[in-house]
């Protein structure tokens, strides 16, 4: 990279001057390079921390490095150490930063009353309480203790769940454990689809 030597004034940084005096005759390369460009450093170098993660999209499981600065994700790149992916990411994996920082990402609980045309805000704690109540009530109202032949069923067909393929194993484990203990058996996910 050329620098025009020993001209500390603005003249030295003037692209036209550099074009005339430097190697970049057409003024399209180093002559037009700005101080801002010179001072730009990869987000991966200025991160506070880097977390080792795994891409959340398909089932290849490419390694991801998640760069964090000031408590925010600033970049997500491939993990060059991974034998699975060797640092590469496809368009979806490469868009992971936008996935997790998207401005249209929801961060508040929303509630729709029956028959309403609008969302309302709802406190998370209250939402958890209401959902727990509904689970208990629906289960009570739809409980099947035994079939016509007297065989134990101990279940509810009033509650169903769909989802799990994008979730962690630990999450699926607690889901299945809780639902099963509650007697809810219509538990499914994308694997069936």
């Amino acid at each position, binding site marked *: 990279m050329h620098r025009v030597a020993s001209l500390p004034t603005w003249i030295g940084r003037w692209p036209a001057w550099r074009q005339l005096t430097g190697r970049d005759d057409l003024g399209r390369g180093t002559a037009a390079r700005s101080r801002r460009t010179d001072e730009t450093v990869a987000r991966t170098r200025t991160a506070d921390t880097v977390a080792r993660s795994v891409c959340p999209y398909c*089932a290849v499981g490419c390694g991801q490095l998640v760069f964090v600065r000031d408590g925010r994700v600033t970049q997500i790149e491939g993990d060059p150490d991974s034998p699975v992916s060797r640092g590469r990411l496809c368009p979806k994996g490469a868009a992971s930063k936008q996935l997790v920082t998207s401005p249209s990402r929801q961060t508040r609980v*929303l509630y729709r009353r029956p028959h309403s045309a609008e969302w309302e805000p709802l406190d998370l704690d209250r939402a958890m309480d209401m959902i727990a109540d509904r689970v208990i009530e629906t289960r009570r109202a*739809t409980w099947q203790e035994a079939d016509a*032949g007297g065989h134990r069923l101990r*279940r509810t067909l009033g509650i169903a769940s769909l989802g799990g393929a994008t979730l962690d194993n630990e999450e699926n484990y607690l889901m299945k454990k809780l639902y099963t203990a509650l007697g809810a058996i*219509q538990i499914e996910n994308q694997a069936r689809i």
Partner: protein
Amino acid sequence: MGSNMAENHPVAFQWVVQAKLRGATVLHVDPRFTRTSALAHRHVPIRAGSDIVFLGALVNHVLSGEHYFRDYVAAYTNAAALVSEDFRDTEDLGGLFSGWDERSGRYDPASWQLTGERDETLQHPRCVLQVLRRHFARYTPDLVERECGVPREAFAAVAGAVTGNSGPDRTTAFVYSVGWTQHTAGVQNIRTAAILQALLGNMGRPGGGIMALRGHASIQGSTDVPTLFDLLPGYLPMPRAGQDDLDAYVRAGQQPAGFWGLFRCYAVSLLRAWFGDAATAGNDWCFSYLPRLTGDHGTYQTVGAQLDGACKGYFLVGENPAVGSANARMQRLGLARLDWLVVRDLQLIESATFWRDAPEIETGELRTAEIGTEVFFLPAAAHTEKDGTFTNTQRLLQWHHQAVQPPGDARSELWFYYHLGRRIREKLAGSADPRDRPVLDLTWDYPVEGRLAEPSAEAVLREINGTGPDGRALSSYTELRDDGSTRCGTWIYCGCYAGGVNQTARRRPWREQSWVAPEWGWAWPSNRRILYNRASADPQGRPWSRRKAYVWWDEQRGEWTGHDNPDVERAKPPSYRPAPGAAGPDALSGTDAFIMQRDGKAALFVASGLADGPLPAHYEPAESPCRNDLYGQQADPALRRYQRPENPYHPPESAVFPYVFTTYRLTEHHTAGGMSRTLPYLAELQPEFFCEVSPELAAERGLQHMGWATIVTARTAIEARVMVTERITPLTVQGRTVHQVGLPYHWGSRGVTTGDPANDLLPMALDPNVLIQESKAATCDIRPGRRPRGPALLDLVATYRRRAGIGEEASTDG
């Protein structure tokens, strides 16, 4: 085959390209010319839904040309086993096997059983090999040309490549995705490939096998640790009504030989993990706490239950059935009948907002003010905001580390379910009602951390791994006992926390390891990277060739060794023969490579366990423009249909719906779109919903490239931009032209890029074994121009139904 790997698993495809650079031949058999085809040596266009004809013809080619790997077949498959005298093949019964009961719609597999006798010469007319020959005798290259639209020369090229690259020195691998599974004959598609690969001696060998490419970050994990109705963790079955005690359950599930012989150990250890000290020998380890199945409780059945008002509450957890499930319109109608719905996601997906922007609002079939569904939308934490493991498509568990806190009210599912369970237990505390005992007796005391009281994912993983009587983490599922001394949440994952170390978090760089790279993450079971790898060595324990050496018996050290964890007990010599009365793993000899099977052998013929036959047979898809030329039986007799007004089917060979359509994914989008249509980066790469048609079909129907088309089925009509492309080629099938229409299914009404959902076109027609829908082959009409809006859309669809002779749908007012 049945896969577009470069498109949907792009980074993994680098390895296919690497193999190609080293001289491997890459073939792509697919209805469309795709990104995978562009990098393959050859693309073979095929009619969607005719895979068993093609694969069956390969089996026939291998058998009639004697190309099978004889020593491998004799030692490692059930080729020599004799089938019951009562068995009748599809050749005898016009497309049915013996044992079909029309009234119940089921097979009785009694006549499919193996007698226990064997003919090692493989000549006996009832030995499996000869039964196979006879079964596939009419699957000829001529048939492939007629039914698949594949010219004889193309088939011969594939057959030559496959047989030329199989045997002791070379192996052939098959890769599939939902191009095989999403069919009413889905399981049998895969079975045909399994028969082929077993005959060629490719199973359990490096560069061989059948790779299932699954589609989501942890869909494998969600099958292993299953949020699936019919399974418990580790592929233990959910108990059924009538299995009133643990003994009955174990009797139904265990195998006399092989590692399913330890079924009771896995089951008791799971119950102890879930119910802790409440589970004792005296109460059958709380087995009575488990709810019972009585049939099909799958997701498609559940939608019917929602429409009927029987299913009142629904959780959607990172899934979007309003766009992503077959007969998506029916899914939305079901959502509108619920009492309450909980949606947890990163973005507001169509399944959360259906009450205001479902297509049915526009047609008038649904009115917002009349939809009584109470909806809770709870924001979810992203993968960067939580710890936990994903299991990839190669059974590899990889821990991902939390990088940042989730924003606002966003929480992980671990948080949600842990605290939901905690609250439910608090509300039910002190209950005397016996039905509340299971949830109150659950072990549910995970440590929580931080301001958000986030449960420790590592503590959950430790429970999944299992602990011994002293509370220390177990290292192997062989340590599990049935006396209550061990606890294990998922037996196949036992070892992922061996030594109290999170093995799934290991990250030794690939440069510092062998090509197998066993120290990156942890694969189940036992960090074994190729299953059934005992078959990579001959019966004496020597590799079939030096070139393909993988694991072998070291006579000096008296143990199995090699590049991977051997899939056989390390100290079991090839010469081991079981003593009379031996059970479980001890009942398998030192030459038995398929250790989960009761006879230790790869099944060419499956005597029990499949709903639609011990052998694959070609059946037409549930909706097809073609008749079944092979048999009188048109489609899979056991295929699961749902006869409901919302789910009308097209009759076969309907002139009103003469075109085949198939649905698929694009690299730049992800399934039902919640994670891609909402992102500008990805939306701009694939900005619009389109259909792919051949120039010939475009000419026939007056479709303009970049114009609009309306695609119609009895379910509904959708619109898409038209891409006229030679990537789709018309096929000559049964002497006439069959056209195919391609439809990526990512679009819905919300996001940066919006469009109609392709899944609205599909009926619910499922494979009878695993209840997966047929979304890879159905029929439609296609016409130029945009679709009508409002009630006029319903009129259009009604017109088509009348023309096709399909019954009127019940009015939504009634």
